[in-house]
């Protein structure tokens, strides 16, 4: 019998594909009707694939910004229990391991920045290496590479890039345990050698933003966000090292899966048991890549601080938070009334711990974890806070961005890069990029309505809106 892939509506913002055929658990989609209607059918196929993997617990969850990815959809959350044959999937994390967002306050109101905005955009564009072929100022030898992969942002701070205060506002305090630099290949390390402290390209960016709207004044104040204030958001990941680790382990898992008795409905779902040598090796290498991403965002932050110091010396860039949205993390969750240790894949999804969670910095514990949502260059971004219900809804997870609604090909055909830059300039948004075609592919119109995405996340009990940020200047690769 053919699978019924059209999801059933459970509530205004919850949809479900019941477990059937090879599915071990249902697939659950959190989205409004309009967002569900816009979903590519491939998302359903990929969710069904994820729901069919060994050891999956609860459901295969799709966030409101879900879209067609490779293997797992982008915007997917899936937890696996190692004691129930659970697996880890390199494609379920993605190539850009620990890609994420950090937001910093500047201590300045827009009025203090407005007249210097062009100079600031130029200084940031000059200071932060971005785009294909760009290299960072820090070239790592073998020993420094291993120290960075073991230490993450803590290593960066030890090297003088930032302060200890930064580390309190980063997931896992800037360094994830269990990293195994020795399991990262020589090729991955070579690919990273000159890429530390670079932004990358594609959808990565650094934005200067204004806090445009508050939804909850008390939480905003706790996060350091006041109306009219200027903030900086940085979106980038583990650079070439993560890409190479993803590439190598995806292949290794494709080749090894039959030997582990895993029948893959599609090779893109390649995975290995968590309790296997390959699964453990991947986790060790992936954690090293998470640390690489944390170090990278720390270095980019320090470059941004230097650029601000030249143009607006009164600015003080302080972290609100740093979240990753391409990871597999070991976490304890309440499943049907009992605690279970799960390995939670979030691919294009953000961890969203609710109030009181012990992993949150003390200052944020009453409010919930900051969840940083990158929008498009034109529409703005959001700061959300994790909700208590999110634990039961989706293993304490929320969306990560607007999500593309149009392919790069379509976007490039529809808009010229110059048109996009000029249109944004008319709206007061400075765009600095190395590639006009790259800007066209990232045109605001190629993305879903981020406001609709975060409204759905809030209605579904994943994370609640705290503040909306609008772009003033955008640095692209």
């Amino acid at each position, binding site marked *: 019998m053919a699978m019924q892939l059209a999801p059933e509506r459970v509530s205004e913002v919850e949809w479900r594909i019941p477990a059937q055929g090879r599915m071990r658990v249902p697939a659950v989609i959190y989205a409004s009707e309009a967002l569900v209607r816009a979903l590519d059918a491939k998302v359903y196929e990929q969710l069904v694939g994820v729901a069919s993997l060994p050891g999956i617990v609860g459901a295969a969850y799709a966030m409101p910004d879900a879209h067609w990815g490779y293997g797992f959809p982008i915007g997917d959350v899936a937890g696996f229990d190692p004691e129930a044959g659970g697996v880890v999937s390199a494609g379920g994390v993605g190539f850009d391991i620990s890609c994420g967002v950090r937001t910093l306050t500047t201590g300045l109101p827009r009025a203090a920045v407005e007249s210097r905005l062009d100079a600031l955009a130029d200084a940031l564009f000059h200071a932060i290496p971005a785009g294909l072929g760009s290299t960072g100022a820090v070239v790592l030898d073998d020993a420094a590479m291993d120290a960075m992969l073991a230490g993450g942002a803590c290593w960066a701070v030890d090297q003088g890039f930032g302060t200890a205060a930064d580390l309190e506002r980063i997931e896992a305090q800037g360094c994830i345990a269990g990293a195994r630099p020795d399991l990262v290949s020589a090729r991955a390390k070579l690919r990273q050698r000159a890429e530390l402290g670079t932004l990358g390209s594609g959808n990565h960016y650094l934005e200067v933003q204004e806090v445009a709207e508050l939804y909850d004044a008390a939480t905003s104040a706790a996060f350091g966000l006041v109306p009219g204030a200027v903030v900086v958001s940085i979106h980038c990941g583990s650079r070439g090292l993560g890409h190479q680790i*993803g*590439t190598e382990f995806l292949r290794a898992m494709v080749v090894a899966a039959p030997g582990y008795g895993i029948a893959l409905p599609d090779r893109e779902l390649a995975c290995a048991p968590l309790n296997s040598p390959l699964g453990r090796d991947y986790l060790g290498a992936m954690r090293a890549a998470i640390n690489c991403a944390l170090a990278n965002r720390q270095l980019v932050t320090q470059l941004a601080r230097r650029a601000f110091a030249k143009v607006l010396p009164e600015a003080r860039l302080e972290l609100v938070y740093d979240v990753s949205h391409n990871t597999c993390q070991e976490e304890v969750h309440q499943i049907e009334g009992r605690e279970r240790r799960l390995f939670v894949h979030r691919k294009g999804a953000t961890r969203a711990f609710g109030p009181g969670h012990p992993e949150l910095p003390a200052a944020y514990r009453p409010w919930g974890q900051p969840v940083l949502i990158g929008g498009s260059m034109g529409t703005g971004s959001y700061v959300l806070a994790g909700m208590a219900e999110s634990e039961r809804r989706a293993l304490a997870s929320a969306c990560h961005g607007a999500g593309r609604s149009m392919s790069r090909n379509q976007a490039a055909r529809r808009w010229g890069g110059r048109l996009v830059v000029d249109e944004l300039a008319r709206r007061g948004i400075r765009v600095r990029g190395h590639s006009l075609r790259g800007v066209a592919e990232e045109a605001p119109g190629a993305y879903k309505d981020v406001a609709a995405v975060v409204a759905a996340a809030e209605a579904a009990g994943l994370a609640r809106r705290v503040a909306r940020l609008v772009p003033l200047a955008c640095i692209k*690769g």
Partner: protein
Amino acid sequence: MMAGGASAVGYETFSHEADIGVRGCGPDLASAFAQAALALTAAITEPAAVAAAVAVDIDCCAPDPELLLVDWLNRLIYEMATRGLVFGRFEVAIDGDRLRGRAWGEPVDPPRHQPAVEAKGATFTELRVAREADGRWVAQCVVDV
């Protein structure tokens, strides 16, 4: 771009929501692989604008043609990343499970090449290496960018 017929040689990129698909066609497996490599370049920049200043030799081995395509594209991505190159011309020879290729290119020059994206890795999504009914070979997959 692509044309019909058993002798047709060509490449194209195809739409994927988050990333980009690359597809090459040719009268034999090797030419389809070379064309797929041109499609990979086309996802980044205009292949015709890339000078053949330096050559890089690539040798890979895989248990089946689909895995071989992924390996070939990933080696090109790796060479581009570690050498700071873009490639505009390719030669491929395939003998059983072994591919020997050569890629010609030049150092990436952002003002001239206007690179739109950085290829992170070739995926197993939409991965297909097959001989079509009309006799030509197709080699394609989605590349994470």
